Each structure stands twice: as structure tokens, then as C-alpha cells.
């Protein structure tokens, strides 16, 4: 081993990294494996089976889960779409519109939902809807989600826009493109990897949210996390593990897509 690498390596650091990986992945793997358990008990292993996946779709609780899944996915889709559009416009103003007085306050406002602890934002949102006399339900969840998804959509979009030199738009405008055309036909296509990854992150964050949703949902309206939480309070059941496995596969798939998009350089 050369002297150079010797200075860099510390004994035990690799072992701790492995331990870290085990801690991170063991719980997810165990739940995935047990979701295929044939036994109705969560402590006994009786062999492989898909019965709990069937139970999620056709069992006694299936209607509840289907409704919750519909609420979760429709809210995540609408909230992530609107948050991404708003974030793209904001990033254009902050990265591509010179320096101006409201620039830093705007950036502060956009990062506000990340700075305020989630439980505090949940309390504040509940109090707000209550004080203006809004009935809690689907709409209150949706509005809250749009708001807290904005920073998550914004960060990858801003990072991407900072990475694109404005020579492309300049070239377009030298060839008599209007600013709107330069934006739509040059900047926006170059921005696509950032925009898609912002959308995916916002979508996951919306799908993930429990605390804020739990505060503003009102009676009878459930999303997947609140339905799962309600169920888990009475003990972990195998069908919950099946739902969890499906949801975690979906998240991992989306993050993987987002990861490869971030490496995709379409400015060349």
C-alpha cells in the first residue's frame, strides 16, 4: 500500500460503514421478506405466499386502503405538479432575473417550510384553516401539501438552472427569438432533468407526509400514511407489511429515476 492511501484510511471506518448500511437496510428488508409470509401471525414463518398482497386488494380492509391510496396519489400528483410549476417560475426569477431587493426575501420564503419544524407547521396550518372557517378534508390536505412541496421541488430546479450557462438563450435571442421563445424552446428543455427530479421529490414528500396530513385531514378522510398509522396503533399486521413493501418499492424506483436524471447532461 502506498504512503498516500495509508494516510487516508482509518482502521474500522469500513466496518462502521458496513454497520451503517446494515442498520439502514435491515428493517426494510425484514419487512419485505415478512410481507411474503403465509402465516397470519407476524412472529411465525410459514413459507412464501402472496396472500397478504391479495388481502390488501380484496380483503376486509381493501375499500379503506383503496380510498386512502386514491387520496394519497391524487393529492401527491396535483400538489407536486403545482409545486413544480411554481418552483420553476420562482427559480427563473431568482437565477435568471438579475439582482433585486426581493430576491433574498423570496428565497427565504421558499425555504421557510423546510426551516419550520414539521409539527409546528402542522399546528399552524390547522389553526389557520380553523380560524378562517375552512372545513377540514381533502381540499385542506391538498392546499397544505402544495405549500410544503414547493421547497423540495425548488432545490433541484435551482441547482439545475445554475448549471446551465445563459449562452444558449443568448444565442437564441441573437437569432431573433423573443424572451418567451428563448425560455420555452431553449431554457425549459435544458431544465427538464431538474424539473422532473424536482417533481419526483415533491411527489415523494407529499406521499410521505404524515404529521401535517394528520392535523388537517378532518374526520373520515384518510391518506395511506394516516390509514397505516391508524392500523399500526392496534398492532402490526401482515397486510400492513404488504402495503409497506409496495410503497417502499415505489419510492426506491422514483428516487432511482431521479438519481439517473440528475446525471443526465443534455446541454452537450
Amino acid at each position, binding site marked *: 500500500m502506498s*504512503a498516500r492511501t495509508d*494516510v*487516508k484510511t*482509518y482502521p*474500522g*471506518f469500513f466496518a*462502521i*460503514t458496513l454497520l*451503517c448500511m446494515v*442498520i*439502514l*437496510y*435491515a*428493517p*426494510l428488508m*425484514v*419487512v419485505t421478506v415478512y410481507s411474503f409470509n403465509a402465516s397470519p401471525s407476524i*412472529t411465525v414463518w410459514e413459507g412464501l405466499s402472496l396472500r397478504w398482497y391479495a388481502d390488501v386488494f380484496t380483503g376486509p380492509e381493501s375499500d379503506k386502503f383503496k380510498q386512502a391510496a386514491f387520496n394519497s396519489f391524487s393529492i401527491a400528483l396535483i400538489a407536486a405538479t403545482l409545486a413544480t410549476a411554481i418552483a420553476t*417560475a*420562482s427559480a*427563473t*426569477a*431568482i437565477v*435568471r*432575473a*438579475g439582482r433585486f431587493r*426581493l430576491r433574498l426575501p423570496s*428565497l*427565504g420564503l421558499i*425555504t*421557510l*417550510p423546510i*426551516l*419550520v419544524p*414539521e*409539527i*409546528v*407547521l402542522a*399546528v*399552524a*396550518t390547522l*389553526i*389557520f384553516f380553523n380560524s378562517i372557517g375552512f372545513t377540514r378534508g381533502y381540499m385542506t390536505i391538498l392546499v397544505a401539501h*402544495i*405549500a*410544503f412541496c*414547493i421547497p423540495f421541488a425548488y432545490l433541484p430546479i435551482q441547482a439545475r438552472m*445554475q*448549471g446551465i450557462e*445563459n449562452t444558449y438563450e443568448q444565442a437564441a435571442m441573437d437569432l431573433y427569438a423573443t*424572451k418567451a421563445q428563448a425560455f420555452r424552446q431553449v431554457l425549459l428543455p435544458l431544465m427538464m432533468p431538474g424539473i422532473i427530479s424536482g417533481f419526483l421529490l415533491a411527489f415523494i414528500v407529499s406521499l*410521505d407526509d*404524515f404529521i401535517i396530513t*394528520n*392535523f388537517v385531514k378532518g374526520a373520515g378522510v384518510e391518506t395511506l400514511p394516516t390509514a*397505516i398509522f391508524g392500523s*399500526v396503533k392496534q398492532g*402490526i399486521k401482515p397486510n400492513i407489511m404488504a402495503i409497506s413493501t409496495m*410503497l417502499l418499492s415505489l419510492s426506491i424506483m422514483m428516487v*432511482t429515476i431521479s438519481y439517473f436524471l440528475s446525471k443526465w447532461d443534455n446541454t452537450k
Partner: protein
Amino acid sequence: MAGGAASSGSTASDTYAGARHWLLMPSWFVLLIFVAAPVAMMLVYSFLTKEFRGGVIWEFSLGAYDQFFFDRGLFGDDPPQIDWTYINIFWRSIWQAGLATVLSLLIGFPTAYFIATRPERSRALWVFVITIPYWVNLLIRTVSMKFLLRDQGPMNDFLIWTGVIDDPLRIINTNLAVQLGLFYSYLPFMVLPIYAAVERYNFTLSEAAADLYASKWATLRRVLLPAVKPGVIAGCILVFVPSLGAFLAPDLLGGARNFMIGSLIEEQFKGNAGNWPFGAAASMILLTLVLIILMVFARQQRRMGDMR
């Protein structure tokens, strides 16, 4: 954090300067109405009188803060004495979040260092592997942790099967379970800033230290650590702050005895037993605490930036 993200390099331009206010209007509209106004409203609510079925009566009152800090006896007319009940819950939360931060640092630092010293091509993949679990639903991760750690859970089964232990380890409903849960929730926040700092670190400094007969560990402590300190502090803040207000890990893994701020606040808004002004006041105190931490942190980061 926000300031750092804003610094735009050579790619900044003023192409769309004319439309800047139109472009910003949607985010101002949504965030002012649905984030800033609610926080202001919460401050107002913390000074109102509680209504018994949940909600508030619009009458000014310091009752919520009074209840938080003082005990005035059963009928409210004894001389005020400091009431430690709620202060202790906050104190315990700070302590739990602190221990979770230490745990994250002990495991996160070596991990981040190890990743940052990999060949450049494999680093991104390592970082990706570390961050994947973070994007899995927090509730699902916490439930998985609970499933794994149960008294009759797979971890205990495994340890008994291998003969390491004879009786199951009772981890669920202890402080340790909460710390493990918080660690699991926010670990990437510790690894990523440290990784970024170590990656920028100039390893010729370590070589120079070694040439001057510094031992490996002396080099780590006296040369490397001071150089990557901003990353370490950032990581600690990013784990500590969300841990402080966490709800799921203490609720699902800690049981009733390991109550934290998040559960105290949540309880005030559930069912009829709640006390909205008190919940709002507790939220305000938590928010103030977090903002103070973030401000001290921002000032320190700026000072370190000036020193360069």
C-alpha cells in the same frame, strides 16, 4: 443554508428581469397565505383563552404560557411556582435529540469519511445508497424499525438463534429505541454535509502531519477535524433540529413513558381533551428554540466563511 444556496455563479443573468415579479407571484401567494400567515395566526392563538371542546375563545390570555412554566395550585390562586412538568418534557426531548445526534455522528462521520475517500467514480453511487432509505416513507421506516426490534422480533430471534443472548433484548419502549428511530430517520442529513466537507479537504495536510510524525489519530483530531468542522456542525444541526420536534419515532418506538415535545403538542389538538392555546404556545416555544439554533449556526458559518 438559504444564503449559501442563493450564491449564483457565472450562470446568473438578468434575461427575465422584466418578468421577475410575475414569476415570483405564485410562490409568494401560496407561501404567504398558507405558511407565513398560519405561523402568525398560531402566535395569536397562543395568547387566547381555551375552549373546552377544543378551539379557542377570542379573549386575550397569558394562560397558555402560564400553564407551561408555572404551577398555581389546584384552584389557580396559590402563589406561582415553577412547574417542571412541561419544561422537563422539553428538556428530555433536547436530551433525546442530542443523544440521537451523537449516535448519528459516531456512525455517520466514519461512513461519510469512508465514502469521500473512495475513487471518484464510485462516490456518487455510495451517496445514493446511503440516501435511498431516506426517501422511503418515514412512517414505514419507523414501523419497520419497530417490527425488527420487537421482543419477539427477527433481531431477537436471530440473536437467540446464534446464541449471543438467551433472553430477548427489551429495546422497544426504551429511550434507546427512540434514539435508534431518530438516527434512522435523519442519518443522511449527517452523512451528506460531512461527506461534502471531507471531499473538499486537502489530503496533503494529512500527509504533512504524518511527515512530522503525527500519529493517525492525532492527525484526525488536530488536522482533519478542524478542517471539516463546518460540515460536522451542519450535520449535527440537520439531525438535531428535526429530531427535536419528531413525532413518529417517539410515538411508535418510545411508548407512553418516553414522551417528547411532538407528542405533547399533538395531544393538545386531538379529541376533546385538547387545549389549543397551550398547543400553540408549546409550538411557539419549540419554533423559537429552533430559530435560535439556526441563527447561531448561520452566524457561525458566516464567521468561518470570513476566515477563509
